[in-house]
């Protein structure tokens, strides 16, 4: 077991929220076509509220703090917040589009000992990138921002979210990242909006291109063998009674700019609000959070007996957004199919349901 795995297991056993994503704002200078947020300010936490929250998170044992948005540099108090977070000895990662980062800010980030800065980049082609962000000139600014950070000695990661508009560009973005000495990560899933609106899910790429990406070993790293193996078979029953679906709500959670607490940014099931309760009370006692924690693989409808078993990447948040946090995430069933060519139990069920409708439509 690695040091990281050992720490994760200890946090799980002790009920410690090891990792928190904190969104400082939903406001943004870009208007990305696939974004799951609305960009209005509905009453963001003040600087004092956020500083107080950070104190509470440190006291609760949070180690990894992902500071995200919206665009975090829209908050003029960003550096005050990050400085406080670093004084509290969090491992801090920032997520940004990089547009507002110039040399001075990059230098300041480097001095603060930030673990990494993740920058959203959609294409190697400026026109495609700007067409997705809806901000003319954003490609140029984003690349410059990444260069300033890299030159200041900050670890930079390009996060390349793929959809139908840019799915064919990922190889070139990967090459650009390599040439710039920047790490590259790909995300091939467009998720519904936090309010449940599924309109943007239509932006997902087609199954053929998804399968191509899922089989690209240059993207899978040391997980290639595991992810490209044939389906592992159903989870053994005794294991299914014990296995947790993921860390959301167990060692991780998400706090919105309004102080709402959720199991994960991708799991918009509100479990409390830090303006009404202390964070630790929400973490320890929220009935909703304990409901999430009670779920075991054996409870998942169709999943516990599915052929993909433990090789499935099912996201409980996506399942929640599909209507049932104890049900399947069909988007992950589709990924399992793209990887292996074998339809999951729930995908087969969905296809059986949809056949008569298609016949009727004809």
């Amino acid at each position, binding site marked *: 077991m690695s040091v990281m795995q050992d720490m994760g297991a200890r946090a799980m056993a002790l009920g410690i929220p090891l990792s928190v994503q904190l969104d400082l704002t939903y406001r943004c200078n870009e208007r990305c076509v696939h974004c799951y947020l609305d960009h209005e300010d509905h009453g963001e936490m003040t600087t004092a509220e956020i500083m107080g929250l950070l104190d509470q998170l440190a006291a609760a044992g*949070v180690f990894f703090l992902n500071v995200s948005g919206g665009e975090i540099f829209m908050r003029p108090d960003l550096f005050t917040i990050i400085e406080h977070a670093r004084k509290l000895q969090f491992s801090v990662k920032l997520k940004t589009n990089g547009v507002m980062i110039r040399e001075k800010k990059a230098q300041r980030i480097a001095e603060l*000992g930030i673990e990494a800065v993740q920058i959203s980049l959609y294409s190697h082609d400026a026109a495609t990138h700007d067409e997705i962000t809806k901000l003319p000139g954003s490609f140029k600014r984003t690349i410059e921002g990444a260069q300033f950070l890299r030159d200041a000695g900050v670890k930079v990661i390009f996060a390349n979210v793929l959809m139908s508009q840019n799915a064919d560009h990922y190889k070139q973005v990967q090459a650009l990242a390599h040439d710039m000495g920047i790490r590259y990560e790909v995300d091939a899933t467009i998720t519904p909006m936090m309010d449940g609106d599924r309109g943007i899910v239509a932006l997902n790429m087609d199954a053929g291109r998804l399968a191509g990406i899922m089989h690209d070993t240059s993207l899978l790293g040391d997980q290639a063998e595991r992810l490209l193996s044939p389906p592992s078979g159903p989870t053994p029953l005794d294991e299914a009674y014990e296995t947790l679906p993921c860390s959301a709500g167990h060692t991780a959670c998400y706090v919105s700019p309004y102080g709402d607490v959720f199991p994960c940014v991708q799991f918009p099931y509100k479990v409390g609000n830090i303006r009404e309760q202390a964070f630790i009370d929400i973490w320890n006692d929220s009935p909703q959070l304990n409901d999430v924690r009670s779920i075991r693989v054996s409870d998942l409808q169709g999943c516990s007996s599915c052929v993909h078993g433990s090789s499935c990447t099912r996201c409980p948040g996506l399942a929640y957004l599909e209507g049932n946090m104890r049900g399947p995430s069909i988007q992950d069933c589709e990924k399992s199919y793209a990887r292996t060519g074998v339809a999951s139990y729930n995908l087969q069920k969905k296809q059986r349901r949809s056949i008569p409708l298609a016949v009727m439509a004809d």
Partner: protein
Amino acid sequence: MSTALYLLRSSNVAARKIGDELMIMFAQDSSLFSLNETAAILWNAADGSTPLADIVARDICPAFDIDAETALRDAAELAHGLAERGILQVGNQPFDTGSATT
């Protein structure tokens, strides 16, 4: 030990006590360490202004029932080891902590 030593936590590391272990992570390469009990005492006391001899007398000798001379020698060796890994800075004078992470 003739020369006073002062310890200061490095500003580019993150730290948190998870259960009974103090975890340290480097920003530069994301490497993760678990500090043993004595190293954790040094980390927590490394404010840049308290001499190592005082830290040993206050925090180490009572906890480990060990004589001051041996404890100071061992602690100095450990502190230099932590400094080599970039976890602490070690100096012969108090540090200016105006801009340091404390």
